[in-house]
């Protein structure tokens, strides 16, 4: 094993390489493109025995990925943001094919307004597709989880595609020390892909992914997929343990940081959760009993693990880097569903922050902890809070004045029509 500096994109590419991927359908999109650039280079210089095809869209890319997996080869692909959404129809479709492969998603906020920077609305939109989801917070995790993802996807009890998620910029373009497993050890760990009887061969005709008429057979097939996704929890633990044995790094479906005697906890996922770890350290230095609970898996949702980890906790600050329009943070909603009705359920405060790559400062983590503690004292969670400062709004007003949003209209809270367009 050698330790070297890799970006998150580099780590993802290494994951695909070390897993002895056979086939990579690709399509460029920022901030994912470096992954396919690295892979294309390795293939061109004979360092990888892999076929790569640049498709004409992500929709086609996922179709080709699923079709190749359903023919019996090991497939990797990568996308981001708008690309993931463009492929959305096929995400559901190829999961239904029970086609196992690994897709890296480099999280980036969704249009409109279009942006290049990171948040999780793209990946949470793929929540219900049948893809399993692994969320990374360091470049090392990106590499390791890519290898684990192949095992997870190809396991008989699962046999579904898996998304490995990393944040744009904060991981994709950021270099960190990453321990690179030996190629032979990685290959041994991932093993050969056995497509079983789900493959196309001249000697064994099969009609795959045929239509159904009537809700009953449909319910059967869909629920079987759900059960397979749920099996992902057990399978993940097994293959992660095996990974730990081989490579010395242990991964859990829900990661705990300094949760032992904690009374309060942050709950968040993605690369900003390392900032939450930093906040936990600093708060602990000041005498707080606080920890971080970080789901690695969003699908399957590790309900039991959450319940076990959070049952003794008094107050929680959930930080969502996503927003479900008209509801709020997705992780918050899901955690509420997991904790409702539990004895001594914690008071759960909701925060939405880091949208479009907005920084979450250390002071904000402290303040969120403070809010969560106050909520425990009052026995009631406050209204969900967007991490957005007065100063940011002031800056926004400056931009709006350039955009010729009438100054006197700013701050008006009613949507009354003042009689047409009053702009210049």
């Amino acid at each position, binding site marked *: 094993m050698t330790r070297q500096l890799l970006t998150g994109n580099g780590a993802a590419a290494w994951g695909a390489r070390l897993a002895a991927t056979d*086939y990579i359908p690709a399509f460029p999109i920022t901030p994912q493109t470096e992954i396919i650039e690295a892979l294309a280079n390795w293939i061109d210089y004979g360092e990888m025995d892999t*076929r790569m095809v640049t498709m004409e869209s992500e929709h086609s890319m996922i179709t080709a*990925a699923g079709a190749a*997996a359903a023919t019996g080869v090991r497939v990797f692909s990568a996308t981001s943001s708008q690309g993931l959404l463009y492929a959305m129809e096929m995400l559901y479709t190829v999961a239904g094919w029970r086609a196992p492969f690994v897709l890296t998603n480099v999280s980036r906020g969704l249009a409109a307004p279009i942006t290049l920077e990171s948040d999780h609305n793209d990946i949470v939109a793929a929540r219900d597709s049948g893809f399993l989801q692994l969320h990374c917070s360091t470049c090392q995790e990106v590499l390791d989880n890519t290898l684990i993802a192949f095992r997870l996807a190809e396991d008989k009890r699962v046999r579904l595609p898996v998304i490995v998620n990393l944040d744009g910029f904060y991981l994709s373009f950021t270099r960190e020390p990453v321990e690179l497993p030996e190629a032979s050890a990685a290959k041994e760990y991932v093993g050969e892909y056995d497509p079983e009887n789900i493959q196309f061969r001249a000697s064994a005709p099969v009609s795959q992914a045929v239509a159904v008429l009537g809700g009953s057979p449909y319910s059967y097939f869909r629920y079987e997929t759900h059960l397979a996704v749920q099996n992902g929890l057990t399978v993940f633990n097994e293959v992660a343990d095996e990974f730990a044995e081989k490579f010395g790094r242990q991964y859990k479906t829900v990661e705990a940081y300094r949760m032992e005697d904690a009374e309060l906890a942050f709950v968040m996922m993605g690369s900003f959760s390392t900032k939450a770890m930093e906040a936990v350290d600093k708060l602990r230095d000041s005498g707080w009993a606080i920890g971080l609970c970080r789901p690695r898996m969003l699908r399957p949702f590790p309900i039991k693990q959450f319940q076990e980890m959070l049952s003794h906790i008094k107050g929680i600050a959930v930080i969502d880097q996503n927003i479900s329009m008209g509801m709020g943070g997705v992780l918050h909603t899901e955690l509420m569903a997991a904790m409702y009705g539990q004895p001594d359920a914690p008071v759960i405060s909701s925060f939405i922050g880091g949208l479009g790559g907005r920084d979450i400062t250390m002071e904000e983590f402290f303040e969120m902890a403070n809010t969560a503690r106050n909520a425990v004292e009052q026995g009631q969670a406050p209204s969900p809070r967007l991490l957005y400062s007065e100063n940011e709004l002031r800056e926004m007003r400056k931009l709006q004045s350039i955009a010729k949003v009438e100054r006197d209209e700013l701050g008006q809270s009613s949507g009354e029509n003042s009689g047409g367009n009053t702009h210049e």
Partner: protein
Amino acid sequence: MSEVPMTRYKSLKHMPSTRLLGTGTPMCAGCGGLGALHEIYDILGEKTVFVNAAGCMTLMSVYPFTPFRGSWLYTAMASAPAGAQGIRDALDILIEKKRISKAEDLQVVVLTGDGSAYGMGLSATSGTMERDLDYLYICYDNEGYGNTGQQFSAATPHAAKTSTSMGPRGFSGFKKDLFAIWAAHKPAYVATVIGSEPVDLARKIEKAMQMKGPRMIIALSPCPTGWDYDPKETVEIGKLAVKTGVWPLKEYINGEIIHTKIPRQRQPVEEYLKLQGRFKHLFEPQRNETLISKLQNKIDTYWENIES
């Protein structure tokens, strides 16, 4: 192509008598698309995998039934050619890496309707041609979104009544020239066929099978349900489509377009139109001479350019 390969299919008596496509499909009685498909399948053989897009033939295989003796994959409306890419590449990889024998190889065949071929799937199709994918594409063209009740599509002919062009002049647009669009990509082969001309069809499929790269087939598929005629007329209408010059049988090879059947004494287009309910408004309650001659003129112009 200067040298036309020898054909096994000299006349009707040389046509295969095997029927590979299973019975029992839910396609409409008298379906012209199914007619063309079963003729094609008999030539292709069962070492095929059909990659299908949303359309009438999505329902060819409804769990647990399939009419295919070979394989099948349903994808989605826009991306059947991308599915073909994935399968072709995967089979190549498996053979290259010696994980399967050459005998396990399959012909990859995309099967879509006109809605996908002329519209939503065109970008994916264009992509496979630019990547020189080795596959066969069969478009069964029934000139409308048939599976949803025959709304007009980019393949609907001028003046045809569809469920979204019910007015007195029918569809105001014109049928898109998919043959020309495909040929502009310079693929290995493009051809038009129709089930009512089985020998011409068989020769073209036979020829396509001897080639590598994208081989693109458009099969005009008379549709009793969507075109509103008695199912027994399917073959007759198909023959008239050729005899009136509405559906030119042609192929594109090596940059050249060759007409494989030139109707020397073209019958008037109204012979074709008047058998179909979708053109009834051209004749009743009174004859719409303007529209009929407009349609006739378009056909005449096309053939004048060919014949001269």
